[in-house]
């Protein structure tokens, strides 16, 4: 009976994993990169590297931002100010212009955002337009080229399968403690299983946490029934309870001047015992019903929900102080959400999260490869007799190449595009993203045409060279390359860290490709002809 249970769990693990593994690989890779979302964005705006440490007080920055908004977007329905903080030192303003009068009802206003000079309020000259790390962050749950709602259902579906695969995988793994430290390279299927086990088991707390909390981040969408029952279908009043920023009344249509911002900021920061504010939202600026919301910087804690205060935008009176004493359920959600996004992490802990994320990528990749290696063995006799592999195996092998070797090429292409496209190009962010998908599309199509060992090698080498080339590309296209940031120790350190990380990833890919080539030569010498594809290289796991 026990054996039977384990076998059925093994079946469940295999198919729940295989079905969603390529989407999961994308989600894991993009999600792992998102730990350094701000740093990636900074890296992708080399014009800001020099002005990285211009000290300015919050009050000054807020005033500059307000003046800029008043001149740039006097008719906007909402203004946003993101104040400089530890990880993102730029002063950013944003606004939503109301939709045109003749637009169909329910049309949303257009959101615009700019990084401005904290002293003059002018748009920073010639800062290239890019979505930076934000694109990778959105990619990991909104995908692209499709409505965000569909994407979130797809990603949620895959995450649910992932959770099933994790639990069934633990049950299936008979030797979880005996094989705890075991990795035996160069043993074909055995090695893949070892690599899959090691990357899964050693980072198991992380995998469980990230999958479960990932589902929790979108729980209101996946499981709305509790809310529907408790709030009798009135979703809006629920959201107003949970998210204070959603409290957003209608404009009165009567113009009234906005109250000065600085006293409110001082009042808020005093309320939080000196912890600075991070963002300001102004609803209906210049209207009699204007409100001003000020949000607090994250304090080092797991809970991502931070206090905020609402002021009347005309009189400056305190309307409400939110999230200061949140209930148990909301606090639980806050902690789970906080664990997922890891904003509480100092740089070191962030690196640990990143490494665990890479381990997750490797786990998904090795799992996908393991299926192909195993299934190919079932064809051994047929292949020896000159037969061909089945459609399913061919498809999986091609998808594996396109995802595991192709995705690094796409990431690298995105970063290359950021450096190579003309700075003043119109629709620049879209062009960068196109490069990502064109590169990936080409890799995926080529993989479908020729899913063999040579294709693995080509794509791994391409990814490796592109990644390793990024620091070199920087030398020619920016003045904040490793020679300046690292060897002359001028910083910014996060930019140097980015270059070193892509260099390391490139070396990992190169090792995988090199290993694959060496193995092929050996196999060729031994048998005199090319053996069936045996993607059993241990270093491939680093490719992830």
């Amino acid at each position, binding site marked *: 009976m026990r054996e039977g249970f384990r076998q059925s769990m093994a079946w469940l693990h295999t198919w729940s994993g295989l079905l969603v593994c390529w989407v999961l690989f994308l989600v894991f890779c993009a999600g792992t990169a998102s730990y350094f979302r701000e740093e990636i964005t900074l890296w992708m705006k080399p014009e800001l590297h020099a002005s990285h*440490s211009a000290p300015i007080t919050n009050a000054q920055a807020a005033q500059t931002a307000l003046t800029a908004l008043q001149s740039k977007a006097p008719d906007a329905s909402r203004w946003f100010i993101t104040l400089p903080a530890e990880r993102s030192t730029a002063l950013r303003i944003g606004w939503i212009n109301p939709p045109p009068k003749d637009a169909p009802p329910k049309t949303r206003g257009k959101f615009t955002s700019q990084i401005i000079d904290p002293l003059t309020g002018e748009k920073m000259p010639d800062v290239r337009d890019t979505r930076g790390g934000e694109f990778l962050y959105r990619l990991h749950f909104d995908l692209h080229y499709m409505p965000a709602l569909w994407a979130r259902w797809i990603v949620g579906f895959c995450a649910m399968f992932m959770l099933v695969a994790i639990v069934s995988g633990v049950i299936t793994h008979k030797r979880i403690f*005996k094989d*705890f*430290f*075991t*990795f*035996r*390279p160069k043993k074909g299927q055995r090695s893949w299983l070892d690599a899959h086990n*090691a*990357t899964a088991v*050693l*980072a198991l*707390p*992380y995998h469980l946490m990230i999958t479960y909390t990932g589902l929790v981040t979108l729980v209101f969408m996946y499981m709305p029934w509790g809310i529907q029952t408790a709030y009798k279908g009135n979703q809006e009043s629920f959201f107003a309870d949970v998210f204070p920023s959603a409290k957003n009344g209608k404009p009165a249509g009567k113009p009234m001047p906005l109250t000065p911002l600085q006293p409110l900021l001082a009042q808020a920061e005093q309320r939080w015992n000196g912890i600075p504010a991070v963002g300001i939202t102004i609803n209906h600026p210049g209207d009699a019903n204007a409100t001003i919301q000020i949000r607090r910087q994250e304090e*080092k*804690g*797991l809970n991502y929900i931070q206090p905020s205060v609402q002021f009347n935008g005309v009189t400056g009176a305190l309307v409400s102080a939110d999230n200061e004493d949140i209930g148990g359920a909301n606090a639980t959600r806050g*902690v789970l959400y906080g*664990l997922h996004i890891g904003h*509480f*992490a100092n*740089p*070191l*802990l962030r690196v*640990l*999260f990143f*490494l*665990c994320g890479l*381990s997750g990528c490797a786990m998904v990749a090795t799992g996908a490869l393991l299926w192909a290696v195993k299934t190919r063995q079932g064809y051994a006799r047929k292949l020896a007799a000159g037969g061909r592999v089945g459609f399913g195996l061919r498809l999986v092998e091609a998808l594996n190449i396109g995802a595991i070797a192709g995705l690094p090429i796409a990431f690298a292409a995105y970063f290359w595009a950021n450096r190579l496209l003309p700075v003043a190009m119109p629709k620049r962010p879209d062009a960068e993203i196109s490069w990502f998908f064109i590169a990936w599309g080409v890799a995926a199509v080529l993989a479908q045409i020729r899913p063999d060992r040579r294709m693995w090698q080509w794509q791994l080498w391409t990814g490796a060279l592109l990644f390793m080339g990024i620091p070199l590309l920087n030398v020619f296209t920016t003045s904040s390359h490793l020679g300046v940031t690292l060897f002359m120790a001028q*910083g910014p*350190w996060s930019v140097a860290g980015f270059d070193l990380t892509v260099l390391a990833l490139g070396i990992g890919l190169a090792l995988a490709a090199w290993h694959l080539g060496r193995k092929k030569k050996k196999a060729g010498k031994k048998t005199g002809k090319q053996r069936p594809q045996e993607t059993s290289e241990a270093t491939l796991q680093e490719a992830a």
Partner: protein
Amino acid sequence: MMGLIDVIPLPFLATLALTYSAWVALSLAMDRHYADINGRGAEPSAVSRKRGRWLGTLALTAAFAVCVRDSGWGIGPVAWLGTMTVAALLLVLQLCYAPKSVLRTGKPVLWLALLLTLATGLL
């Protein structure tokens, strides 16, 4: 500009050294890895097996204490788990590609771990 000491704080190094030596001790209590390290056919004695397990458990507990003391009950356990993962991945690679070197690194790192733990002011 942040100094190096802020980027790589002492408690993290102590935790890394503690968890690494814990994994070494635990792996030395296992037949396969004992044989990998000490040569084919070697088996740990009952005493050294027991000692390895105790030492490993103790070091992991100490690492937990260091983490919680440094970053509190919320973030401490997260840091502890993350460091354990990284230390274990390091040891897996070492056991695979240079098993004999574990004998050379195990003890010094354990001493270093004690020293660092002392330095963080826990004991």
